[in-house]
């Protein structure tokens, strides 16, 4: 591992917090959280969700920020610092981040494609649009194949928008944390403003109140249901962009005497408040669709971010009584801006910073390499079978990879580095002092929560039955998940074995 040069810094504390909030807020805040709230007891779901945030989300974020600040390095350097044998555990989430950003940028490319399509509501207006939205996405945009094993040709319009997305990411990250923080102010506030517009539009539609009733009406009997707690804890695990290496790097850019814990609390609260707010925009529109189409809520709402974004919401846009095109453009711009700061977080904090630290590469060189390789890997998702691969790789990286590496990181930091040592380090300079309870959360509660989610929501489903019903030759969807996961693990050990002696960064 290279010796670090003078570490780059955030220009100010607010810019660091904006960058962290931007990385945390993504499509899941807008779709997954509101759906889970409706599905698992409405207001009652918010109780385990808040508990999960306090006992799992915030401590995990303090850990990643705090370890980054302590070692002044990104994930691989941190785990190498704990013990040379652990460096691979820093690389594994780097590969997880790489996989996620490789398909996340394709979803953003779809959003850009829809911004253009929205100018004339290309999937149709009124009843025709309601019927045409799904075929438009699957046939016109994706030209989807019969299965994951049939990749078909590249969809060149998506390739073009993917290239554009990566150019934007490159331009934002190649100058480092200073520029990222300044850009994040805009990429966080613009989606907030757009969500306000979409909320106003939603609330002024007929049937909006019915949708909000489904979103918020409490069913406290659900609190005795284990599934509700599982859903709440899994949402917390996924929503804060932890377990993807990036927050370690973001923490390493924090000045040595700066606060850690208060920034983690503010970031977590802002992320969760955005989720709660987005639920109003989503479910007011869901209520409108229920009334307009005469269908029950279960046929409108789903937890699939991609399905809701590109198949369900376009139906709502078609059915709106006025300003369909404008709402369409604003909605898909909102999706793009929600995604862009997560994308440059994954690219820079997750992958580029570790590469710079390890290989002593200049930022421009590392950024160029990472952006080009991730773009090339992303081409697979722009094929006719791309959607199936997005789903499988998402399951591999954003579910298994994130949870397993997150749990292992907590265990190694908690028991190997020492949770008490980390606590004392962050308390030295933080606005909010954490007590000894933090140690047990890091050592036991957080990893146990993550393992609980990965077993109940993952292995218990994907081991007995093939994931998604996919088949590629003789391989099932589950086989592919295990293979990709295994390859990233092996690569992590390979990267650990590579000896370097350069000087990182500039």
């Amino acid at each position, binding site marked *: 591992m290279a010796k670090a040069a003078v570490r780059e810094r955030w220009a*100010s*504390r607010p810019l660091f917090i904006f960058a962290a909030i931007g990385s945390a807020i993504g499509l899941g805040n807008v779709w997954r959280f509101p759906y889970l709230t409706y599905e698992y007891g*409405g*207001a009652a779901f*918010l109780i385990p969700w*808040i508990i999960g945030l306090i006992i799992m989300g915030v401590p995990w974020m303090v850990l990643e920020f705090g370890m980054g600040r302590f070692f002044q390095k990104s994930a691989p350097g941190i785990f190498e610092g704990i013990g040379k044998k652990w460096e691979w555990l820093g690389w594994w989430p780097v590969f997880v981040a790489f996989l996620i950003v490789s398909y996340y940028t394709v979803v953003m490319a779809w959003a850009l494609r829809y911004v253009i399509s929205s100018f004339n509501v290309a999937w149709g207006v009124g009843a025709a649009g309601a019927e045409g939205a799904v075929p438009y996405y699957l046939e016109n945009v994706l030209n989807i194949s019969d299965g994951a094993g049939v990749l078909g040709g590249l969809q060149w319009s998506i390739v073009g928008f993917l290239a554009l997305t990566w150019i934007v990411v490159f331009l934002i990250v190649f100058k480092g944390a200073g520029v990222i923080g300044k850009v994040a102010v805009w990429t966080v506030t613009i989606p907030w403003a757009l969500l306000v517009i979409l909320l106003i539009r939603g609330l002024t539609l007929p049937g909006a*109140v019915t949708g*909000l*009733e489904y*979103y*918020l*009406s*409490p069913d406290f009997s659900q609190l005795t249901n284990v599934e509700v707690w599982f859903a709440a804890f899994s949402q917390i695990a996924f929503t804060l962009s932890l377990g993807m290496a990036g927050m370690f790097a973001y923490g390493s850019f924090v*000045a*040595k*005497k*700066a*606060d*850690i814990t*208060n920034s983690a*609390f*503010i970031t977590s*609260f802002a992320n*969760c*408040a955005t989720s*709660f707010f987005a639920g109003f925009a989503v479910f007011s529109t869901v209520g409108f669709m229920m009334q307009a189409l005469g269908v029950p809520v279960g046929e409108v709402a789903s937890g699939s971010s991609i399905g809701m974004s590109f198949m369900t919401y376009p139906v709502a846009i078609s059915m709106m009584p006025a300003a369909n095109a404008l709402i369409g453009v604003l909605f898909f711009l909102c999706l793009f801006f929600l995604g862009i700061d997560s994308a440059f977080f994954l690219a820079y904090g997750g992958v580029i910073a570790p590469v710079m630290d390890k290989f002593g590469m200049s930022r421009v060189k590392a950024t160029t390499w990472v952006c080009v390789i991730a773009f090339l890997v992303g081409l697979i998702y722009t094929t006719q079978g791309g959607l199936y691969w997005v789903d499988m790789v998402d399951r591999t990286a954003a579910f298994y990879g994130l949870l397993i590496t997150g749990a292992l990181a907590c265990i190694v930091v908690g028991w190997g580095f020492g949770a008490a040592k980390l606590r004392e380090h962050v*308390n030295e*300079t*933080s*606005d*909010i*002092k954490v007590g000894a309870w933090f140690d047990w959360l890091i050592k036991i509660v957080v990893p146990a929560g993550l393992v609980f989610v990965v077993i109940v929501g993952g292995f218990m489903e994907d081991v007995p039955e093939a994931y998604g019903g996919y088949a590629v030759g003789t391989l099932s969807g589950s086989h592919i998940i295990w293979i990709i996961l295994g390859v990233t693990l092996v690569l992590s050990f390979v990267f650990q074995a590579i000896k370097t002696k350069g000087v990182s960064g500039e």
Partner: protein
Amino acid sequence: MSVAAILTTVIMWLVFIAGFAFCFSRIGKGGKWED
């Protein structure tokens, strides 16, 4: 909207406001930005 839904909305926003108020009231109590 039902009373329960309105109460939920109000309580949740109060929770968030209280959380933010606590965090912002603590700014500067421990950390400094510059090294």
